[in-house]
């Protein structure tokens, strides 16, 4: 975990994790993030409109997500977002935490390999 991230930020809430995960691929607008989260989780995560924009707002306030200029010809009303370096670090820290857990689970044979 990066040193300047407070330890008690983890674990991330699923909505935050999915937003950061979606933005790690490049800038997106809100609707695109929601679609990405849905497809990345095979439909299991459907971010509600309030949840999504509230989390985006708070991620922006914290500086983990930054506003991004819309590409040429895009609907000007759509706000675009990109992930900040701090956001990248936070996402990585969370994924590492999960990875460690998964590794631990495997080593205890709590997680059988899929056939």
């Amino acid at each position, binding site marked *: 975990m990066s040193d300047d991230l407070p330890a*008690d*930020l*983890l*674990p*991330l*809430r*699923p*909505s*935050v994790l999915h937003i950061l995960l979606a933005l790690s691929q490049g800038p997106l*607008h*809100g*609707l695109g993030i*929601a*679609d990405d989260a849905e497809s990345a989780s095979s439909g299991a995560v*459907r971010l*509600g*409109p*309030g*949840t*999504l*924009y*509230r*989390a*985006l*707002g*708070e*991620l922006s306030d*914290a500086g*983990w997500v930054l506003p991004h200029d819309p590409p040429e010809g895009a609907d000007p*009303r*759509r*706000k675009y977002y990109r992930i900040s370096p701090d956001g990248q670090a936070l996402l990585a820290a969370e994924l590492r935490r999960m990875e460690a857990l998964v590794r631990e689970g495997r080593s205890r044979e709590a997680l059988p390999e899929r056939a």
Partner: protein
Amino acid sequence: MNRPPDAGRIFRMLTRLLPEAFRRRHAEEMAALVEHRLSTSPGAWARARVRASAWMDVVRTAVGLHANRRMVGAATRAPWTTLRTQGGDVDGWTRDLGHAARRLVATPFFTLAGVTIVALGIGANATVFSVVDGLLFRPLPYTEPEALVSIYQDSDDGEPALSSFPAYRDMAGVEGLFDGVAAVSPTQVSLETDDGVVSLYAAYATASYFPVLGLTPARGRWFGAGHDVAGGPPAAVVSHRFWRESMGADPDAIGGILRLNGQSATVVGVAPEALDARGAVLTPDVWLSISATVVGGGFQVANLERRQDHWYDVKARLAPGVTVARAQAAMDGLAERLAADFPDLNRGRGITVFSLTDVRVHPQAQSPLVGGSVVLAGIAALVLLLACSNFGNLLLVRGLARSPELAVRRAMGASGGAVARLLLLESLLVSLVAGAVGIGLAVLGTGLLARIPLPTEAQGLLGSPVDSRVVAFSLGLSLLTGLVFGLAPALRAARADLADVLREQSRGSSSGRGVVLVRGALVVVQVAVSIVLVAGTGLLARSLGALAGLDPGFAVDRTAYVRTSLSQGGVPPEEYRVVLDELLAAAGALPGVSAAAAASRLPMQDGSSTTTLVEGYEPRSGTGAVELPLAAVSPGHPETLGLAVLEGRAFGPDDIVGGEGVVMVDEVAARRFWPNGGAVGGRVRRQADPDAWLRVVGVVSSVPVEELGEAPRPMLYFPASQYTPSTVYLVVRTGGDPASVVSALREIVPGVRGGLPVLGAGTLSGHLGDGLAAGRLGVRVLGAFSLLALLLASLGIYAVVSFGVARRTSELGIRAALGASRERLTRMVVREASVTVLVGVVVGMALTLLAAPALSGVLFGVAPRDPVVLAGTVAVMVGVAQVAAGVPARRAARVDPVVAFRVE
């Protein structure tokens, strides 16, 4: 689906819950997301789920944002609360809400009982609130209603009443006081349609009427100055309801012609829809211009210049800075001037100004409205109190049953506050769901009320619909219920000491002394309220029975009537007598009819009265005159209605216009005005006709003048041949069932003269029944409330006894093992409950004895503290208590000693 889906009104409404800044920044994109999901969801069910989850999400977000909780931080919570988060983005309150909801679903009996009990209470209150609000508080649909006043000239009795049209002109002529003065005169007219003649509520109104109220027509225009004079073009403005329902919302209706009472009026506008909500009395079907007074006949036109006729309701808008007091002072001056200019008509006749916010319908109606509203609201509040006390009881029992579970939660680290929050959320959920159900009940309730037949003047007064104010009131009330009655058990659980709970359990007694006392007090309240309501019902029912058993004094079983209006039928006044004779002849010729008569009113009915001087009689009031109810009747009247001619004679064919003026009086009048006999041959005169002395030719037996059971009132009868009424009842006596001639009676009316409207028809037994309708309604409403109260009280008693039995299972088992008989055990358990019930009975009786005299005004033939009713009430209550306590008590007697020991 070709049309792009829309996020929907509900969604946008819910986004208003979000903080302003958040909404401005994100609302549009949020809607876009929902629409995107809707467009990719196949099938109506999938779309409904998208919508529902979006609504929930917005509400959750709004709650979270307002509570200023951050989501991005750690998800760490007290362990027991995170156990069931299912990974969703929810914070404490919403998580607990879901948890509470699941718990309620898992205990359907508790949930259903709680919701039902509270919903009944809320429903009763919402219904009453809707009615009372509509009568007294709902804002008037006018611009700045606080500047509006009603101005009333006194009636001959000195009570504020309607004004004459010339007086309206005088009021409007006072300078510097008003921004506008208007006059309106309600009436009924007959409209000719393709399907025959229908009767409409109408009102003649001045061109200033809409401007004064600040109303603008929804379509077309209101009357102009040219419509304000007799002889101008007759114009009509129809109500929005009439335009919609009778004109098919035809945009071309303006410019059309209405045929009213045989006259024509051009439709110039449609009134705004907001007026329709006030019901038919307050919003007529059609407003007619002053130039359309020809519709009402020659007298309606002549009336515009007559100071003796008071037909107009005057409304005015105060000029800025003018107070009601200043307007009143100016009107006092006007009254003095009128008294000086027209001493015969206006001496002592005051003019009174009322703010429209103080007096909404009429000064004489205001205090009964307020009084009735208070009584209704009081009864409804009692029922809510009952419902809440039972709900509180339920929550207490549930709290006790859950003590161990809650203690474990505390042991696992949940704070007292967290446990209290969970319990509070449960009771809030129940009460809010109950509130929603209660609103549904209120919709049903107000619908039923609107269908209760009322006298024409009051039609529609009770039909005020459930609106946003009622919804807000109900939800507020249910929130309050959930908070007040959920708070005590919740706080108790929060304070509960783990050790205490475990200790109590080991003792086999899970209830402290305090809880037993609270439960006892709740049952005392329930029993006492039930006693009051049951006693009230009993008194009203006995009073109704006494009224129904009363001899009304006229033939009820073999009489039928039909009512028509000669003036509305377009008959010129000079032909009234001829047409009336034709109607009488046609009615008398019907098969099965043995006698026929005409009368301006039926017994037991409001009607006109006249200020009368009786020769040789000086009334105590010192004014020299008495106000007497009167009826104009044809010669066959006493015979047809079965009245006895006690002295002298009935009217005959010789009592004609131009002949000697004659009257009949009833028995009460004969005894009061001629106590030493000699009524026949005595003389009376109307104050309005100083030179026309009338000779009494007969005395007939008395009938109830306005209502059954009234104090005996003197009455005057005029011959219809000399005073032909413009609106008349044809009454017939039949050999067989009177109901069979009603339809034939209806048919002769237009048969005699096309265009004559049928304003009502029926049998006199039906008319008698209508007179009892208000009493029946009272007994039914109060009876329904009493049954509800008894049901709730018996639930309370049942709960107390079952609970006592459960608490004492081991003790009862030991006693059974030691040889106590079942009867003994039963008695032991019941005795405990009996004390509580008896305290309730005593409290209830005391309240009843205190409150009953308030009913004396509406009771007939039964004392407010009638011992039969009071004894019956106690018997009913004790009986219900026996049953309610008996069921669990018998269970106690069956306790098996072995089981009893095992409970430990």
